[in-house]
């Protein structure tokens, strides 16, 4: 199926404006919103995963070693991960 160009013509709009591409919001990079970003200190990180669990953007992922990092394409810099990290392994720096 050919990719539709945005903005769509009326003929191209899906009937009823239905959306058939789940999780297509990923095309909108909310990372541009933030004023600060989280930085992990892996010497302090205990790999508990609480930061991953509490991120409203679901943008924190686990790497191969079990440490965590934020996908800066989407991180809005809210600071929840920093606030909830028990061993204080995360700090927010200006971005």
């Amino acid at each position, binding site marked *: 199926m050919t990719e539709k160009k945005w*903005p*769509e*013509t*009326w*003929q191209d*709009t899906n*009937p*009823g*404006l*239905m*959306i*058939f591409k*789940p999780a297509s919001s990923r095309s909108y990079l909310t990372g541009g919103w933030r004023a600060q970003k989280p930085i992990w200190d892996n010497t302090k990180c205990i790999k508990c995963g609480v930061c991953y669990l509490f991120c409203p953007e679901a943008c924190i992922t686990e790497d191969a070693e079990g440490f965590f990092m934020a996908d800066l394409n989407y991180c809005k810099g809210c600071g929840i991960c920093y606030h909830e990290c028990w061993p204080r392994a995360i700090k927010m720096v200006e971005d």
Partner: protein
Amino acid sequence: MSKRIGMEIAMAAAEAVALCRPDVIAAYPITPNTHIPEHLAEIVADGHLDCEYIAVESEHSALSACTGASAAGARVFTATSSQGLLYMYEIVPVVPSMRLPVIMCLGNRAISGPINIWNDHSDYMCVRDLGWISMFASNGQETIDMCIQAFKIGEHADVMLPVLVNLDGFQLTHVVEAMMMPDQEEVDKFLPPRKPFAALHPDNIVSMGTLGLPDIYNEAKKANDEALINSKKVILEVWKEWEKMFGRKYEPIMSYKANDADVLMLTMGSMGETAQVAIDELRKEGFKAGLIDLKLYRPFPADELKKAVKGIKNLIVIDRAVMSGGAAAPVCAEVKSVLYDDPDRPVITNDIIGLGGRDVKVEDFIKIFKKAAKAKPERAYEIYGVRG
């Protein structure tokens, strides 16, 4: 084989809908259409129809539940009148905008202020612009036929729009008539199961009812409008198929003694049949009266209307609702708009008759015909028969 039955039209409508094998019915009772959901409930309760019947707590929830059910891929039906329609009003334009087929029977009843449970078209006129395919039945047979046709039209892959079947409250809903009721085999042949374009199910993920920002809203509205206008093609096809199967013909505008008429009257709904009696009487006197009966109201049959009034000197548009403070009554305003550019258009008079269930009599139509033939009207619209 179709069977000849004698039944209250509302119950017959319910029987016809049951033959269409709906999956979900969500309806709330309101006079005068109550017998439709009641009889359907009986049919389901006796095991004659495999259907989920939701006895919803309001009309708003009725149409909401129908929308949800249609979104999930089911064949759905609801019925209401007047205030019930107004209570579900918020959802009425949402259904066609989501391209979901929902079939609704509207037992035309006056809208409140003052509260009145009897027949007129004011409830339909509130929703005519919201995107539903709309038909008007003039008698019991048409009611049955249109209910079944509505499912085929609305669920058609090129249409995917809700359909509204209008039948006059009390004048039709509570009247017993002789009708030909198709049997299950015939309806199954005419109406295959619904094949939804999209349905809510994890096997094929879809988001419906999404946000339309200003940069796409215009296109969405245009797309829906085109869908409604183009549905006429399918409606005519379905009507042709119906005629082949059942021998009963349907056209957007049907006429009675209109070919050689001097004065033509345009009606919708059951009052057309009363007008026909008046026309027969007038013809006896040598007065050349004729009738055109609007069966399809949305999409508006402009071409058929122009054709029907060609050569006619006088057209009387009979409305059964008021467009308060407007330029004319609702149907007349549209008729005038369609005929405006025609240099040979007839003189158009407009009478509003039968509001709030006031009886529409043969003598009334005779009077209206004779009045129209004489003079040009002073006011844009007249409520016929108001005392004072």
